[in-house]
Structure formats: C-alpha cells, structure tokens
C-alpha cells in the first residue's frame, strides 16, 4: 500500500515539476506580449489613426508599414517560385547528388546568421547600385525566405502517402502532370503553411535590412530602386534615439508588428490542424 502511495506521490511531484518548467518556458512569451501591449497601446491611442497612416514627422509609422508589406511582397515574388521548385525537386529526386546537396544546403541556410545575408547583399547589390533600395532589401529577405518555403514544400510532399503517387502515375500521367497537377495540389495546405511561415519570418527581420534598404520614414516609398523603411528597422532606429517620445513610438510600432505577425500566424495554426490526408 505505502509503496503504491509513494509511487503516486512521485508521479504527482514529477507532473508538478514538468508543469512548472513549462510555465517558466512560456512565461517570457506572455511577458513579451503583455509588455508590448501595455507600452505600445498608449502611444497608438494618443495619436489615433495618424499613427498608422502618418509619416514620422506627423507622428506615424505609415511609410514603415508600407515598406514592410512592400519588402515582404517583393521578397516573396523573388523567392517563392524558386523555393517551391527547389522543394519539389528535393522531393522528386531525393537520392540524386543535387537533391542531397540541396537538402543539406537548405538546412544550413535555415540556420544561417541573417546579418551575413545582409552584408552579402550589400556587397553584390547595394554598393554596385550606389544606393540602398527596396530591391536590395527584398533580395536579402528572399534568401532568408527560400529555405523555409523549400523545406516546408519538401516536407509537405513527403507526407503524401505513396498510394496517391501510385494512383496518379497509374492513370498514365506524365511525371510533370502527376507531380504538378495532382501531388502538389494534394499537399497545397502544407506548402501554403511554409509560404506563410516564410513570409511571417521575413516580415519581422531586421538584420538583413540594416545594410540594404536604408530607411524611409518621412514619405511613402514610390520606387523599388530607392531606399525604403520597415517596421523592425524603424524600431531599431527609434530605440537608439535619446528621446522618450521616440521610445514610445517604438513601442507602438512593436505592437503593430506583433499584430501583423499574429494575423499571419494564427491562421497558420488553424490550417495546420486541418492538414490531414
């Protein structure tokens, strides 16, 4: 009897310990969200809609928001098609030399320090062009985006049960049609998840933009060959300023960035649950 009670007590203690460590692990996340909300909301409320639409001198971060969307869009335009095809290739030819090399490279790229990407793009684009530009920033972000999308595409395709592959080839389809017209659509949810995660990732990046996009906060961007701002970059700049009002603004911008991130991420979580074959 007492042995069994001891075992139960041990089990309970273990559960409590696990619960506490879990709590410690997730506490910072809630702390971040709470801090950003508490510090970010007052400046936004004080300024009203101008905070979202105005330029920096008007007390708004409009150009930075537009810049972030512009950079995300452009980097997707450059990176998504290539990344998608790389992912499909790695799935279709897993044992080929290029296929294996690709998979290894993707893993490295996922973990690659993003500031190095920024330095590299500055060297090959910003310096030759003679100016910071939205294009250079988008190119750097595309390099960061690609491995996410490629790895998710590859993984999504790998999850397709072999029987669907047999079924599509069994209908006398060419490899191209079987892969792109049947198997890719079968795994479209998984691929879309990768696309959204990649986009959410680059929308929040700062380091690769430091030496590539410059910054533009007093007017809205109108050309991809001109410097452009971005919310994370603006936060970085504002925090370095000595003025308290700039700090308040940085908090407001942080909240906007958080909301954009959540707007992308929550639908991803939802769609992930639906991935079933």
């Amino acid at each position, binding site marked *: 009897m007492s042995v069994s009670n001891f075992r139960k007590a041990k089990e309970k203690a273990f559960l409590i310990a696990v619960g506490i460590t879990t709590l410690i692990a997730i506490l910072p996340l809630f702390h971040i969200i709470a801090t950003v909300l508490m510090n970010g909301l007052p400046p936004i409320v004080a300024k009203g809609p101008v905070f979202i639409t105005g330029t920096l001198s008007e007390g708004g971060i409009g150009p930075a928001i537009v810049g972030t969307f512009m950079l995300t869009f452009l980097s997707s335009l450059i990176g998504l098609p290539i990344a998608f095809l790389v992912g499909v290739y790695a799935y279709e030819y897993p044992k080929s030399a290029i296929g294996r090399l690709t998979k290894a490279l993707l893993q490295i790229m996922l973990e690659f320090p993003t500031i190095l990407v920024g330095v590299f793009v500055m060297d090959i684009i910003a310096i030759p062009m003679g100016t910071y530009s939205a294009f250079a920033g988008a190119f750097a972000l595309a390099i960061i985006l690609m491995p996410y999308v490629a790895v998710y595409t590859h993984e999504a395709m790998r999850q397709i049960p072999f029987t*669907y592959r*047999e*079924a599509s080839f*069994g*209908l*006398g*389809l060419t490899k191209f049609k079987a892969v792109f017209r*049947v198997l890719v*659509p*079968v795994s479209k949810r998984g691929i879309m998840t990768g696309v959204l995660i990649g986009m959410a990732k680059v929308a929040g990046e700062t380091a690769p933009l430091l030496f590539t996009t410059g910054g533009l906060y007093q007017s809205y961007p109108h050309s991809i060959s001109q410097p452009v701002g971005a919310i994370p970059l603006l936060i970085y700049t504002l925090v370095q300023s000595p003025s308290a009002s700039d700090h308040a603004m940085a908090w407001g911008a942080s909240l906007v960035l958080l909301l954009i991130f959540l707007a992308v991420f929550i639908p991803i979580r939802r769609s992930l649950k639906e991935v079933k074959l």
Partner: protein
Amino acid sequence: MNEYAIETKNLKISYGDNEVIKGVDLKVLKNVVFALMGPSGCGKSTMLRAFNRLLELNKDAVVEGEVLLFGENIYSPDIDPIEVRRDVGMVFQYPNPFPHLTIYDNVAIGLKLNKLAKNKRELDERVRWALEKAALWDEVKDRMGDYPSDLSGGQKQRLVVARALAMKPKVLLMDEPTANIDPVGTKKIEELLFELKEDYTIILVTHSPAQAARVSDCVGFLYLGELIEVGSTKDIFEKPKNELTEQYVTGELV
C-alpha cells in the same frame, strides 16, 4: 488478336540482391477474373505492378524477362510506360481517391490531364458511364461536387474503380481491393467483378483463398516468389496438384 491478355515469360523481379519474383511464366486469358493468391509478402503486389510498369516508381526494383500485353512486350525499349498505364488500370489496397478533388473530378482527372475528352459534354458522359460501370452512379449522382472524404470505404473504392474505368483500360489490376473496407463494401466490389469481366480482364491480388474461390475464374498460387500452380478456380480448389496449394486452400499454410 492474341488470346491472352497478359502473359509473362521468365519474369524475375528483384530489389537489390533480394529476388522477390523468381522466374514466373503465366498466361491470363481475356475476359476472366484471374486471382493471384498467396500469403502476405510472397510477391503478389510486386508482380502486379510489373503488369503496368508502376513498379518503376520504386527505383530499386529491377525487372527481367517479358510481360506481354495482348501479345506485345511492354518492356521492349520502344514502349512508353505511360501508354501502358493508360491501357492497364489499377485499383489499390487502400481506397485512395484524391482528397482535394470532388467526386466528379476524381473520375474525370485522368481524362482531363491526358486530354482524352473532346469537350465538356463528352467528359460528363464518360464520367457518368464510368460511375455506372462501377455501380456508384446512383449513390453519388446528386453530390458530384462533394469531396470523397464523406464517402464510405466501399464507396471510395468504387470511386477509384470508376477513376480507372474512365480511362477505358483493357486490363484492370486490383491489389487486394477489399482489404481495407467493410463486409458490405466487399460484397459490392465482388459483385462488380462479375459485371466488369464482360469487358475487361481483371487480375485480382488477394491473400484470401475464400475470396479467390468466390469471384475468380482462374487462380494462380504464388508462394515465396514462385508460381506454384495455375488453373481454373474449380480445379485449384477441388483437386489441387501441388501439396502446397492444397495446404494453402485448406487454410493450413499461412
């Protein structure tokens, strides 16, 4: 026209050093249900996939010998495996309609992607024809736009039969088509075989001697990669020549 739908000559299949089919000579008459039976892991499914060259999806598989489809060797170098697969339809062990396509599109996809229907009307007619042949039309005619996830296992399997039939194949391969569906669905599929053999040659892989006895005209007994005995279903079950066959049909060999 050749009297045999499928004929193999010294067919050998191996995965690396592992030879799973060890020189099989087999002749399958036209318009019959031919049951290829044997215990699990004896090479039935592997051999079946040599008949439509689907085995080539597995890069490690090596096929030697000949497989003749109505007298023509499908492994001769000038034959396109894609053409072979259009002539030899297949139904799989796991009911696998494409989850992202509607019931209609599941049947139509082979025709659409191979551009085999001239217009929408012809496509509609062929889809209906295939679903009627697969004895599913009445159950799905009012829900052609639904997704197959709502269908029962047996219905899904008949949908897959319709998908294969829509291509108007000459031979239909069925790899344990009832292994994953309920008894009612199994009965419907088995009834379907009687209808279909009017127009097609059906090669049915099954590990169940009882099923082979119920539905087939001829039986081949495959054991450890060798074809032990072939004959009419009646002969195989009533007076098998080989001892192993006798043990298998009486349930002593599993």
